[in-house]
């Protein structure tokens, strides 16, 4: 079996230990903030990886669901009197519903056609967000009310570090769980051969839709978390570039690898921060690093490195 029980628990333990230990070496609250951004991106990427890496279906518009989650917690309390925590669940529900409705027709498409259809969905949602300025504040964005849970006001970068870290652990646990179940196997089977999956009784359309909905909910929750954390939200979070960033994290870290999504997010979120010392060459270098990484680790960082390690260990 690909992920033995030990392996699954080991992964969770290492991740938990890392989340717990990192603050010991953080010199300033700025680091808490960057790490929280990594956890949030990783959460969205893990969901997208279930769709792309497991079920083999691409989504180039996934930031749409991130944006829906983010705007749900902004608009809900501000305009509709919904408590912030309830807005988070409403956002997730809305994302799931949209994914379900849109997924039914577009998941029949394959490869490039699916890519374009999901891209269209992303563009559409971003467009609605930036034009409905009465609700969303338009291109300028809008403030987000603080989250309070049972009278506890969730604020401060170190608090959010723990909250997003906890969410990431939960998301990782669920993704690892899914892998070794009939559903997870159905995802991976239809990825490798749709026709073979069908003839053993896998309702391919249904499972693609499930993967799409799961990925949408992950992105939505990540979006809500980011909006709460920043206390502010703008349409870029739902935009095309953010969709591309999510796909890049998944592919760079390793398709089908949960750990890969976390590593990919760490690289893609921290690298630009590190590269700011190069000023105007920042983006150029970032692009170059991604290209070189993909050339030398074409299966993504984590699968390639672990493949290398295993070969070493055996010989």
């Amino acid at each position, binding site marked *: 079996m690909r992920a033995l029980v030990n392996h699954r628990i080991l992964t969770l333990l290492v991740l938990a230990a890392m989340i717990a230990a990192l603050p010991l070496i953080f010199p300033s609250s700025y680091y808490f903030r960057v790490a929280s951004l990594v956890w949030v991106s990783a959460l969205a990427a893990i969901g997208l990886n279930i769709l792309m890496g497991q079920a083999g279906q691409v989504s180039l518009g996934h930031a749409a669901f991130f944006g829906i989650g983010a705007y749900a917690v902004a608009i809900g309390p501000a305009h509709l009197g919904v408590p912030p925590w309830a807005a988070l669940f409403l956002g997730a529900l809305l994302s799931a519903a949209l994914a379900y409705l849109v997924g039914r027709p577009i998941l029949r498409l394959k490869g490039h056609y699916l890519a374009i259809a999901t891209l269209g969905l992303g563009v559409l949602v971003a467009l609605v967000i930036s034009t409905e300025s009465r609700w969303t504040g338009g291109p300028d964005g809008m403030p987000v009310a603080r989250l309070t849970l049972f009278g506890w006001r969730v604020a401060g970068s170190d608090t959010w570090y723990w909250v997003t870290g906890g969410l990431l652990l939960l998301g990782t646990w669920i993704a690892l*769980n899914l892998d070794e179940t009939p*559903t997870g196997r*159905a995802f991976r089977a239809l990825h490798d051969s749709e*026709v073979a999956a*069908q*003839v053993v009784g896998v309702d391919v359309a249904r499972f693609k839709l499930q993967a799409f909905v799961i990925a949408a909910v992950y992105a939505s929750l990540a979006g809500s978390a980011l909006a709460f954390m920043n206390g502010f939200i703008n349409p870029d979070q739902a935009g095309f570039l953010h969709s591309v960033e999510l796909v890049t994290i998944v592919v760079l870290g390793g398709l089908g690898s949960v750990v890969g999504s976390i590593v990919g997010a760490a690289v893609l979120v921290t690298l630009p921060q590190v590269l700011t010392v190069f000023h105007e060459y920042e983006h150029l270098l970032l692009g170059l690093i991604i290209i070189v990484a993909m050339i030398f680790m074409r299966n993504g960082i984590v699968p390639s490195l672990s493949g290398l390690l295993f070969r070493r260990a055996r010989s």
Partner: protein
Amino acid sequence: MTILKATDVGISFGGVKAVDGVSFSVGSGQILSIIGPNGAGKTTLFNVVSGVYVASRGTIHLADEDVTGLAPHKLAARGLSRTFQNLQIFQRMTACENVMVGRHLREKCSLLPALFRTPSVTRQNRETRAAALDLLAEVGLKDFADVPAGSLSYGACKRLEIARALAAEPRVLLLDEPAAGCNAVETEEIDHLIRQVADRGVAVVLVEHDMKLVMKISDRILVLERGRPLAEGTPREVRDDPKVLEAYLGHHGAREAARA
């Protein structure tokens, strides 16, 4: 008792009649072989029967139910299973997982328990894996259970497909050239396996080019040529049919064979 019945099935691709007016039926525990030269339409017929292609004419009945045009996964749910001539294995999954997917219909598959890995999910996983390991042992792949299927040899993949198809506990099993690429010993094993499956009451439809195997294990044989039925009968009847000899050996060869 007839369990699978195809009546006057036809399908064409861009004017080419790949299958044209073919009928057959097979009962529980029977082995029906479909033979014919390359391009005769055997695989296409399988694709129609298993719902991968939609027939342009004719009907398919499965256990007295009209299942014409039903999607493959619905046919699978009604007890139809198949293997593929051009391998369709799940490359990135282990051999064992391939067979476990074969048990998809026998598993409870609700999403919420899966997400939170309830004890029932773990228990079911254990049972499915045990069943899959038994099947792998049956096709001689026990030692390869945890090997990625993509790294198995051609012959091993063929047998893996059989194990996966059997995992669904089908009532009808369609085998498309299961012995292709297998050596004499492996062919013997497959022969044995097919008989065993039929003895359990499964209706087997076999497409195979290995005539020795076909003649030995078939109850009946259907011969196709260019999409059309050419002959049908017991192995002996078919072997002695001059039309069949002609189709396989050509006009001249048939006369030679008849004289010999």
